[in-house]
């Protein structure tokens, strides 16, 4: 991920900023210009609170290039409290503790190995909202 690509997604990856339709109040992440609910095109920024629960999960044993150092790592679809699903890695959690329904919260973490052009890519991951005692 090169510098401009990294830079223009700061609000999404550091702040979990999506949009809310001003016509029907539907909230979406990531941002888009056309409402998936009503089809209108009037949006305002909407920052999600970061809380949610695990909707589905997996453990990646064969990672794509750039993610090898973290493998095996847990990934999940997280149902945010405001409604949308987000695809992300889970962190700070024992694999045995990952389950559908687990309460999680967004944190900022390094999401991949340093790229050739030296950009360190940070982004969102999710950890248990009430961390297990063993952590």
């Amino acid at each position: 991920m090169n510098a401009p690509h990294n830079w223009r997604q700061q609000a999404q990856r550091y702040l979990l900023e999506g949009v809310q339709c001003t016509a029907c109040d539907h909230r979406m992440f990531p941002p888009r210009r056309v409402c998936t609910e009503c089809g209108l095109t009037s949006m305002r920024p909407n920052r999600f609170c970061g809380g949610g629960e695990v909707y589905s999960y997996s453990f990646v044993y064969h990672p794509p290039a750039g993610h090898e150092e973290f493998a095996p790592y847990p990934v999940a679809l997280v149902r945010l409290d405001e409604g949308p699903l987000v695809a992300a890695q889970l962190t700070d959690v024992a694999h045995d503790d990952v389950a559908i329904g687990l309460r999680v919260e967004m944190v900022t973490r390094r999401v991949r190995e340093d790229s050739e052009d030296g950009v360190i890519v940070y982004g969102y991951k999710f950890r248990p909202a009430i961390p297990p005692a063993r952590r």
Partner: protein
Amino acid sequence: MNPSVAIIGVGQTAVGEHWDRSLRDLAVEALLAAMHDAGSPRVSSLFVGNMLAGELTGQEHLGALIADFAGLPGIEAVRVEAACGSGAAALRLGCMAVGSGAADVVAVVGVEKMTDRPGSEVTASLAMAADGDYEARQGLSFVALNALLMRRYMHEHQVTREQFAPFCITAHRNAVGNDRAMFPFAISADDFSRAKMIADPVSLLDSSPVCDGAAAIILTSVETARAMGRRAVRVRASAIGTDTIALHDRRDILELRGAATSAARAYDQAGVKPADIDFFELHDAFTIMSVLSLEASGFAARGEGVRLGLDGEIGLTGRIPITTMGGLKARGHPVGATGMYQLVEAALQLRGEAGANQVTGATLGMTQNIGGSGATVVTTILEAVA
């Protein structure tokens, strides 16, 4: 609608790890075989289905490249890309060209050369079928997206991992009778339950392999085919449906709405219903995709797709035979070529040339080629012409 489009020639290379073969070489072999099978007609247009040539072989511009090396310089030639759905999407454009009268005889070839790059790079490239910024760059491999689907399916429908085994076992059994298949050997339920995990709960034996291959078809109008005196397989329907690119943007991830839309359009074009289909070449990139495809296409109710496997309905003599020549799992899944392999195999079934794997009395066959986690779905219905 493609009321009058016919397949008059098919060709395919063996699927496998072709260390000694280039992308252009594979494509040209399949294309020349299809042209020979069609009686060497004069081809006016070429559509090339391919997903990853730029990423994995450093070659774009496949339309001109393959036309050039196939000895067809000067013809109209373009590449079509719709991730793993590229092959059947290319055929769809070929049908539009013939059906509209824009072209007389059209060649379609699907080709993929995947094995030149290391596994982690191939894994990263395949993830480009998903949402690059919001799935792939979060570290979700393409296998992981299917694992999220399978895990949720098991949770909602109280199904175990072992219950997906018949899809793998059936594909491997059928591959034994296909001399083009990558894995022509049997797999047992024990093998399946012991297979190593790729992305839990998706194991190696839920997954189709990385490989190379090319398959090609020659299309013309039914009238031209008749005038040429060629035996033909008629394209009764060819329909593309789409869904959100990302899994997380779907209202219900287990619905596979793109498949439901594409299948409904195809049934409507052909004027048929699921019960009329004699066999179904579905997109078994992962066992969960087979299950969701059967449900979305009307062969099983929601949550009942695994039952078709457990009840023995998917074998060559079952109610709805699938993956009759090995499917993506055991014939192999050279991604951009896969849709064309499905179509070539379906045409061979309808010509009665499927050998040991012939579905007795098959007159109406369906294929479904899926791009991404269901974002592009191409459903094609073929009919034997008496």
